[in-house]
């Protein structure tokens, strides 16, 4: 099936579900009688769909058509489109607004929505409005307010938004903002406060930068107070409304403007070239000079990934330390877009801390990524407690070995997509010498020979033959890590071999005396990465390994089969090696480089550096796949107030008989009955909306004439058992069929206070499903990319796949076998179906959701079922909706299979469509029918940020040109050019390499969804650790113990540094914080959960006179004390740390008394 047809199919199927949902909703059980989510096919439609939530008049006003026109003139995603459309909306060309200011505000929102692709709620909630301020001369200037949700816009977009606002200011002739010195200082102080006391800013400007920016701002940046904290200085300024920290202002000021000034300036410059008039930000030129000055002075001595260390999450390597992850360019079938691949055995060898989907924080070239598996890269090399060294090739082997491993000498490869390197604008990192480079070099010499072979799988004899005949370097798998040993080790190693003999294998002497004498040589053997076994008095290097060593040293292989001593063969080598070192040629070269060149002198072949750059890393957040549950895990959005009891149970409320709460008010004329639903629950007829006047305290048919305080809901006692009984009758449920516990919510926080029909709750509870705040059921999972898959990996039959359009494999062959590789289509996803998921996997959840929807359609709406799912495979082909956190647009997705992981595999285009990369974020999947039927804006919280995470628009067609521009760098290829490796050796900038990518494809007007490719295949993408040990270990103590045990094993990780950071960043902070909290704590009532900030004189609950208890306990404070002390002692941390801990201990003792009972046994810890 071609892409066009596929996309059309998706759209048609989507419309079918819309039709059913519209039919159901027309019956009136829901807050609105039609589906509330507009379907958008283009970016323009998405933009309008989003903004019309605020200004209904813009619907069908011609904005969509105008945007399409502008796109033709300026190109898609061009900022010019957003500036122009903003201007035209502000000039009220399409529709009228209540005031000029509102028109400008609307214009900004439309333009801003365009730059953010219409998928985030920043334009409606991040930018919260425009006001006028007065300059000293009494002129009007713009005050633009921002709030927390500005964060999801992204930094560049928010920088552009400021420029857009200023552009409109200038256009409409408003004055520039004229900040007073106090106001300037306030900007700086507030940003600093936010950074230090609230949360780290991505970019924190220097004082000079911040002051300069603030002095020159053409508009005042303001915002709601987002924190309870007040700024530390410059309070009570006349033109600043609040003394509290304004998070939105800080975000856009530091992360948007200060960080992205250069990029914003460049984009603005381009627009100005096209004739745009804007001068307010001209000062940025000088700012950028300041900014660059700062960049130069930056020292990179303690990378953030290490400093942000979290207790229980291990370090896999300190920066660039030998033995960490070896950098390798490539993109497997399940990596790219900020996902990297490592060998499944490496995952297992990290004590299972790294699972598929686990986030890594890395040293370079990016900050974070998630991990997937790929078995064609190198796995770990480990040393056992008995001294033997092994290369670990499989998960099973790693699992068996881990407990006997003394040291992880090399962690193995980290396969890094070139697209990510170039996207971050990074300098190329030098990879080790690997098979794919060898293959490309061979192709240069002999393309015919290369064509016929698999360069990842070349046997020893062939490799030697090819190198000899074609003059290519020695095959990478035959090379050890020459550059990773020292001069002393090398010489001792040679002298050790000199004393060895052959006998089929290479046998090195290892008696007590030898062990001392050749300690360095033994270490060299380990660091070189040769597999060997330690037996009683000798070290045995098996024939296959010994052959590699001999080829490197230029010794004939035939001697191996004989019984001979190597003295005569090695002596000359040793002498020449010593001589080379003494000759002092190439002064300044490292030991490693010298050794490599010496070995090159010995060998008949060119020996390249196997090591390359090592990348430091630590564990970030673990992977995730689970059903989203609100606090209290409600089944239904129906208030049960305090009457629902601790469990918020509908039945408990029924027993009491009433619920006190805010409910909508309707009137059934037929039954003469006041109700809470738009449809009478007794007779099923339409009800009339009623109005309640807060002053008169009465309801009436019309809003109150006298007062202006009429609302469509009011606080009252509602007969919950009545509604529950009716719901039961509607569903024809007997008492025994009812689920035992149906959980509601404490109260509604939406403006309308709409509640769901209880029927929905009963059915959800029946299927054990929990509802989200907007009425949908969501499954959250880590985002993982997938470009192609095998039927066996997706656990779907070939027949079923053919049915849904997968008829050919990537090579154009007909699909017949479940080992063939298929290219994943852009809307398609694999559900995370590992049984390790706390809810039993997404497959089980979605089967339940499908059945719930069917039953709901039949029993409540009186329609036909649409899903009919009986077994798991029935889900294949069904549509869902994908959403990223903080987004407000969903993208239609299609379930085509299942993965045995805890992450959502989807096309990179899908991730880009929801504006996320795969660096550890999670997305939510919902069933399309559920979204269309049960979602309502009326359920959304009324407060700021309420529309975040709600599917306000739906995108049914992914357009590669209308998604996050990170996708433009995504490579479409099966291999990287040799040029990449050559330039990487010289550490050139990534921009000097050209790889065919999406940008190119779009330029050439090619279908970017086809021929995406991959450079490293793998047998099975599900192979590897499924669930991170971090999640399996229950207590923090356990996590830290395992963390430290692992870090001790990893050669590249510094154990005492890790221990220090764990104590400083985690334990000490925790201990002190908790002790502090103890004396300032609030108290909780056992009976009604009321929280009191201090106890009352009466000593009982202020509400119900119940018993009150602590919210911070003594036990919670002491929890980490002993672990921290042990850790500090064991790793001999600095006396400063030890004393800090000791003091904390003494403080705790002075408050709680000395612990008299026996401490936890030490060995339980370390």
């Amino acid at each position, binding site marked *: 099936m071609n892409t066009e047809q596929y996309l059309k199919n998706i759209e048609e199927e989507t419309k079918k579900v819309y039709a059913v949902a519209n039919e159901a909703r027309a019956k009136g059980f829901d807050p609105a009688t039609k589906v509330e989510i507009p379907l958008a096919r283009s970016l323009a439609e998405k933009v309008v769909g989003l903004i019309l939530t605020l200004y209904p008049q813009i619907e069908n006003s011609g904005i969509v058509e105008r945007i399409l026109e502008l796109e033709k003139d300026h190109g898609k995603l061009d900022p010019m489109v957003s500036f122009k459309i903003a201007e035209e909306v502000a000039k009220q060309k399409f529709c009228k607004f209540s005031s000029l200011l509102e028109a400008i505000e609307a214009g900004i929102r439309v333009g801003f929505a365009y730059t953010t692709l219409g998928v985030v709620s920043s334009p409606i909630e991040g930018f919260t409005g425009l006001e006028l301020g007065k300059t000293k001369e009494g002129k009007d200037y713009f005050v633009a307010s921002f709030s927390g949700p500005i964060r999801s816009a992204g930094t560049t977009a928010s920088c552009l938004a400021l420029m857009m606002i200023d552009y409109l200011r200038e256009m409409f002739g408003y004055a520039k903002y004229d900040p007073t010195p106090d106001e300037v200082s306030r900007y700086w*102080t507030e940003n*600093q406060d936010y950074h230090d006391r609230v949360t780290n800013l991505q970019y924190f400007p220097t004082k000079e930068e911040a002051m300069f920016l603030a002095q020159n701002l053409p508009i005042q940046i303001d915002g709601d107070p987002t924190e309870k904290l*007040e700024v*530390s*200085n*410059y*309070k*009570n300024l006349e033109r600043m409304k609040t003394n509290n920290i304004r998070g939105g202002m800080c975000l856009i000021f530091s992360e948007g403007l200060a960080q992205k000034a250069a990029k914003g300036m460049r984009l603005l410059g381009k627009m100005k070239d096209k004739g745009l008039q804007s001068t307010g930000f001209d000062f940025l030129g000088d700012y950028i000079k300041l900014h660059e000055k700062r960049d130069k002075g930056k020292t990179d001595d303690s990378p953030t990934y290490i400093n942000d260390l979290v207790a229980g999450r291990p370090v896999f390597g300190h920066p660039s330390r030998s033995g960490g992850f070896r950098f390798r360019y490539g993109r497997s079938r399940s990596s790219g877009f900020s996902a990297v691949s490592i060998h499944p055995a490496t995952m297992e060898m990290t004590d299972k801390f790294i699972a598929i989907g686990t986030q890594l924080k890395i040293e370079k070239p990016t900050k974070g990524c998630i991990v997937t598996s790929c078995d064609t890269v190198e796995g770990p090399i480990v040393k056992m407690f008995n001294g033997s060294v092994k290369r670990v090739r499989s998960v099973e082997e790693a699992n068996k070995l881990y407990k006997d491993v003394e040291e992880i000498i090399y962690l193995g490869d980290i396969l890094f997509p070139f697209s990510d390197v170039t996207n971050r604008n990074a300098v190329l990192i030098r990879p080790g010498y690997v098979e794919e480079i060898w293959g490309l070099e061979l192709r240069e010499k002999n393309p015919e020979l290369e064509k016929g072979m698999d360069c990842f799988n070349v046997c020893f004899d062939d490799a030697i033959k090819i190198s000899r005949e074609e003059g290519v370097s020695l095959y990478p798998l035959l090379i050890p890590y020459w550059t990773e040993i020292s001069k002393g080790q090398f010489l001792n190693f040679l002298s050790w071999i000199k004393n060895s003999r052959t006998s089929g294998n290479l046998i090195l002497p290892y008696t007590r005396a030898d062990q001392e004498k050749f300690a360095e040589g033994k270490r060299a053997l380990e660091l070189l990465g040769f597999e060997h076994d330690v037996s009683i008095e000798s070290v045995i290097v098996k024939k296959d390994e010994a052959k590699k060593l001999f080829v490197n040293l230029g010794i004939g292989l035939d001697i191996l089969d004989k019984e001979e001593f190597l003295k005569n063969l090695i002596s000359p080598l040793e002498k020449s090696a010593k001589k080379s070192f003494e000759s002092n040629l190439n002064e300044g070269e490292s030991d490693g480089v010298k050794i490599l060149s010496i070995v090159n002198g010995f060998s008949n072949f060119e020996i390249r550096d196997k090591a390359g750059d090592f990348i430091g890393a630590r564990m970030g957040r673990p992977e995730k796949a689970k059903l989203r549950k609100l606090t209290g895990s409600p089944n239904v959005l129906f208030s049960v107030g305090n009457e629902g009891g601790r469990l918020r149970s509908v039945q408990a409320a029924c027993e009491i008989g009433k619920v006190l709460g805010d409910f909508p008010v309707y009137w059934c004329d037929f039954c003469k009955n006041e109700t809470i639903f738009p449809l009478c629950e007794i007779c099923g007829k339409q009800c009339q909306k009623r109005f309640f006047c807060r002053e008169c305290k009465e309801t009436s048919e019309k809003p109150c004439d006298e007062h202006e305080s009429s609302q469509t809901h009011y606080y009252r006692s509602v007969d919950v058992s009545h509604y529950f009984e009716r719901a039961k009758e509607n569903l024809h449920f007997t008492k025994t069929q009812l689920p035992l516990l149906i959980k509601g919510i404490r109260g509604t926080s939406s403006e309308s206070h709409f509640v769901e029909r209880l029927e929905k709750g009963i059915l959800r509870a029946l299927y054990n499903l929990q509802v989200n705040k907007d009425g949908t059921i969501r499954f959250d999972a880590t985002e993982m990319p997938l470009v192609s898959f095998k039927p066996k990996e997706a656990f779907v039959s070939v027949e079923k796949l053919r049915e849904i359009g997968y008829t050919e494999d990537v090579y154009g062959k007909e699909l017949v076998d479940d080992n063939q590789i298929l290219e994943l289509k852009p809307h398609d996803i694999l559900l995370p179906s590992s049984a390790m998921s706390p809810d039993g996997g997404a497959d089980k959840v979605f089967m339940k959701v499908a059945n719930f929807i069917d039953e709901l359609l039949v029993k409540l709406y009186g329609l036909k079922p649409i899903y009919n799912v009986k077994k798991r495979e029935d889900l294949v082909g069904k549509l869902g909706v994908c959403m990223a956190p903080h987004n407000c647009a969903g993208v239609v997705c299609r379930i085509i299979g299942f993965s045995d992981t805890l992450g959502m595999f989807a096309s990179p285009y899908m991730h880009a469509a929801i504006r996320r990369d795969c660096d550890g974020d999670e997305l939510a999947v919902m069933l399309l029918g559920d979204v269309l039927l049960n979602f309502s804006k009326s359920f959304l919280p009324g407060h700021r940020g309420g529309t975040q995470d709600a599917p306000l628009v739906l995108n049914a067609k992914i357009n590669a040109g209308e998604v996050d521009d990170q996708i433009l760098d995504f490579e479409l290829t099966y291999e990287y050019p040799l040029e990449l490796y050559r330039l990487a050796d010289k550490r050139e900038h990534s921009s000097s390499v050209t790889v065919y990518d999406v940008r190119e494809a779009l330029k050439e007007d090619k279908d970017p969804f086809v021929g995406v490719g991959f450079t490293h295949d793998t047998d099975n993408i599900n192979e590897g650790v499924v669930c991170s040990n971090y999640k399996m270990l229950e207590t923090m103590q356990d996590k830290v113990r395992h963390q430290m045990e692992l870090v001790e094993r990893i050669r590249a990780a510094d154990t005492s540094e890790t221990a220090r950071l764990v104590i*400083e960043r985690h334990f*000490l*902070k925790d201990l002190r914080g908790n*002790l*502090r909290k103890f*004396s*300032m704590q609030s*108290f909780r009532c056992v009976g009604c959960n009321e929280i009191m*900030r*201090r*106890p*009352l*004189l*009466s*000593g009982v609950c*202020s509400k119900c006179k119940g018993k*009150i*208890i*602590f919210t911070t306990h*003594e036990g919670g404070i002491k929890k980490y004390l002993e672990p921290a002390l042990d850790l500090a002692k064991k790793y001999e941390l600095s*006396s*400063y740390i030890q*004393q*800090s801990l000791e*003091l*904390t201990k*003494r*403080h705790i003792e*002075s*408050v*709680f*008394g*000395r612990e008299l009972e026996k401490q936890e046994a030490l060995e339980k810890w370390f």
Partner: protein
Amino acid sequence: MESKEILSYCVDKGLLIDPGLLNLLSETNDLESAKLIIEGLRNHTRQRIITKTLFEQNKEKMSEFFLTLPGKDPKNMERLKIKLGLQIEISKENFSSFPLKKINLRRGEVSLDDDLIKVDFSTSVSNKKIEVGDFVKNLRDRFNQTRKILQDHSELDELVSINKLSRGRKSSIIGIIYSKSVTKNKNILMEVEDLTGRTRVLVNQNRPEIYQQAEDIALDSVVGFSGSGDNEIFFANGIVFPDASISEKKYASNEEYALFIGDVHYGSKLFMGNQFSKFIDYLNGKTGAEEVKKIKYLFIVGDLIAGVGVYPGQNHELVIDDLEAQFQGFAELLGKIRSDIKIIISPGNHDGVRLLEPQPPFDEKYAWPLYNMKNVIITGNPAAVNIAASENFSGFDLLTYHGFSYPFYANNTPSLIKSGLNSPDKIMAYLLKNRHLAPTYSSSQYIPLEEDSLVIKNVPDIFVSGHTHKCAVTSYNNILLISTSSWEGETEFQKRVGNKPDFCKVPMINLKTREIKLLDFE
């Protein structure tokens, strides 16, 4: 200094040095001396492996050798000696003039020479599990103590308990504030409780004379209200704070001076050592000032040292990163002060004492050098101290409190926000008015003892605090308020929050005339 340099020196000389000794040497920041020490040890022992143990085995020889070192930084050398296990000799030398017998400095009367100094503070060692009931008891004690004070106020007539309130009758209540809010109509509404019940107290915005007072009421303070109402709502006509005043100023019979300092922060990179030496020289009469001889008391109200681990990353701001060494160094400084001056010291938040108030005196484990000084009296925080008493004079009552709770009031009390921490005297007066050092729950960390020792039970003649690094001397209702300046340079933090610290200012009071002089050593 980089330990690398020492290492490379050793490599050059073909020596091996153990990490312990290497660390100690590199801490001196004195490469030349380090080299000499290594060289000396090597020459003396003829060993190639230089270890700390080796050093210790040859201690005698080495301490002789130490005397020959040029040492550009004597202080660091001193520390090195201490760390290398020569500390016993050192401390003997420094404290030889004092008996090594520890003076028991607990509550009660302490007699130094002929003077009697009375000290009172909470010993506050808890050995039982703290329960919710302890918080309640503590709160009730505060209520009872303050109520007694308020009952004496004549403005509170018809005093009744909250459950006895009845509508329409004029009455007064004493209550502790649970919550406070401003209504839509801009009235102030407070939830107030006493031991019998709760009511809401409304202060109408049209009553400017009490509205402003109401704005300043701190949560959890104990306040009296006169007005009318019931246990639903009570309309206030008058607000009465417990308040503190001295009806008649005291004058000592002898001409004696008392001096007040605080926030020395010894051990910090920013410690103003030279200025502090000038101060010591002054005390010892080296500047020739006449009045010096009459100086009899020196109060130090906390933060003598910089401490360790007070905030994350503090080690980068320290010259001495060991608590014991900081106390040692500071004690050495105090030891230079002529011994007839009585030094009364209380802890602050940097001194290695737990932050939960009332704070006990310094931990002897670290502060032993102070405890070894015979002219030093150590108290907890807060503390009541009586000095200069004689047969015909009852002595001056001083209240010392470091001032940890002050930032809270500077940031939250409407009338204090403007001047903030730059006017500590206003905060002190405000707290005197409330008769509590930290009325609002969570404004300082505290330990709920049976008796709330942060209540200002007795009105002092002099109230001294530090913590704000701001010098102030004022009088409030005849009570002398003293806030001490700092001996630590301006920190980044202070710069940012806009606190302008004062440095090296020492208020000196003539107890006979109450004349006050501000000495300046900056």
